[in-house]
């Protein structure tokens, strides 16, 4: 954990304040970039802040520390959601993102592990990340190392067959050091997941593939902390899947649960509105 705190309440208050700052930064990056995957960036803010500030064993001053925990953002289009968090915990100066997604910028819509410190794998094409975690976790086991691997997947991403190839193999190799986190925001580019390609019963599917599962509110820090602070040890023999129910576009009134805000740009007025909405998020 990177933040010292006296009590759970103090930690939650700290993280809540961070959610506001990071969401405002996401809005600013959308403006800088001229557009971005804002909906799915805003839906996973609490998940990412919980992981990077509190759960992951990492050292932002030594991003390649060999025994660090790994987090693979399999929903790679969340670059605009994760890059401000990595800056926030100290991997790099926030000002480095001033040319976010511009010509030759190291920071783009889909993060590149060879350009962005703290990114453990280059992602962007869906359905790859959990497989990479299976390889990492098998590697950790082979080397008798205790670090964990986490994978954040989109719910629409679970349409990809390779996700289930990965799930099958994680259970087969008894990889209790793998945790899949689903950002269940219920929307994909073309519409609601229930209409475009039904994925329910999602929890049953992960259970049937051999995962221990839990369904939580992905915006509630107490639920996130309770879940991730109490994961079975990395030597346990069952991978874990945490389905986080979230709201796409969380915090911005005109974006919440709106299909069209999977990707979009902001004019001056809508930017102001977005920032004002975020500042009103309950602390």
């Amino acid at each position, binding site marked *: 954990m990177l933040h010292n705190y006296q009590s759970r309440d103090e930690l939650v208050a700290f993280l809540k304040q961070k959610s506001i700052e990071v969401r405002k930064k996401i809005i600013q990056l959308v403006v800088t970039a001229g557009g971005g995957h804002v909906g799915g960036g805003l839906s996973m803010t609490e998940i990412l802040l919980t992981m990077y500030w509190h759960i992951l064993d990492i050292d932002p001053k030594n991003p390649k520390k060999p025994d660090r925990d790994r987090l693979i953002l399999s929903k790679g289009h969340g670059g605009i959601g994760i890059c401000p968090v990595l800056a926030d915990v100290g991997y790099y100066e926030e000002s480095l993102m001033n040319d976010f997604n511009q010509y030759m910028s190291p920071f783009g819509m889909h993060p590149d592990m*060879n350009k962005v410190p703290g990114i*453990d*794998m*280059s992602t962007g094409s869906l359905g790859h990340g959990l497989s*990479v975690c299976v*390889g990492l976790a*098998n*590697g950790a086991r*082979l080397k008798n190392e205790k670090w964990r691997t986490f994978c954040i997947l989109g719910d629409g991403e679970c349409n990809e067959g*390779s996700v289930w190839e990965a799930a099958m193999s994680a259970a087969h190799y008894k990889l209790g050091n793998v945790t899949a986190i689903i950002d269940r925001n219920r929307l994909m580019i073309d519409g609601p997941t229930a209409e475009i390609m039904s994925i329910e019963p999602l929890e049953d599917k992960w259970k049937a593939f051999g995962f221990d599962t839990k369904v939580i509110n992905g915006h509630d820090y107490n639920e996130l902390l309770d879940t991730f602070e109490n994961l079975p040890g990395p030597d346990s023999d069952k991978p874990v899947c945490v389905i986080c129910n979230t709201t796409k576009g969380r915090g911005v009134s005109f974006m919440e649960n709106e299909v069209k805000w999977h990707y979009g740009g902001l004019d001056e007025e809508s930017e102001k509105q977005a920032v004002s909405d975020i500042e009103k998020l309950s602390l």
Partner: protein
Amino acid sequence: MAGGLSYTIEDLNDLTQGQVFGKTLCDIGREDPTIVCLTADLAKSTKIGTFFNEFPERSFNMGIAEQNMISAAAGMALAGLKPYIATFACFASMRACEQVRTDLCYPNLNVTVIGTHSGLSMGNGGTTHHATEDLAIMRSFANMTVTVPADGIETARIIEASAKHKGPLYMRIGRGFEPPAYDSTDYDFELGKAITMREGASATIIACGMCVREAMEAAEDFAEETEDGKSGRPDIRVVNMHTIKPIDKDAIIKSAQETGTIITVEEHNIIGGLGGAVAEVLMDAGVHCKFKRLGIPDCFSVIGYPEDLYYHYKIDREGIYGTVCELLGIESFADDDDDE
């Protein structure tokens, strides 16, 4: 593969090129404890099973799920291991194409992919199992090194070289029944450096894989022993282009300038593989010469015994010989020789 075909699983399990590959993997695996091996239900057929038997704890059978296997290998490389993957060339290059490109090549990870049963070597195993596109696909990925050993000896050379290689490497091997292309194991091998198997001034055959041996035999067919060493027959240079990428530009340009004629021979579509790569080098260099690509002429290959397919697509000794004659505008010497 369905029953009733001339290849049985037992035949596939008897691959000599594959056996060399499996044995060499074990050799380097004893030296380097970070080497791990993966396959997708083809441990026996690809011979990577040799490593599986010796190092079970470093071996991962990922089931019939090639996409997951490639990405998992990327994860193992990220964990500090050195993965080797073996599956049929058609699956390595096409079923898991994007995983190879995005998870191995884009982050530039140290992973070696071995595509076995490449080209037409699956014979009457069927067109689905032929791999006549893999070189074109793999060659188009930035960071990827693409290799085609001519025989078992060279297979071992490439595996040895791969142990020190940085970045992703693809090696395609055949079924392994081909006779060796080299007479001796004593030759210098370096990735990216073509090997002149036979000197000659009249034309150059640039070949890879099993076609190297066929090209050598075709070239020998032109040679005639005479007391003064001057037969008046064309003498044919043979270049073994075991590394398709990065390709040995100097060897290609020099051969074009010195012999004026180049014939490329490969067990692959004439588009995008060795022939395409050689043509690109010549055009870029502004070097003009007589030129012909032998290979699969942009069609889905028919089925049959591999030898019959090599004949059908003119990539065997006879087909190469005839093509050289056509290009040089000469009659075959075969009839003369028969009269002797």
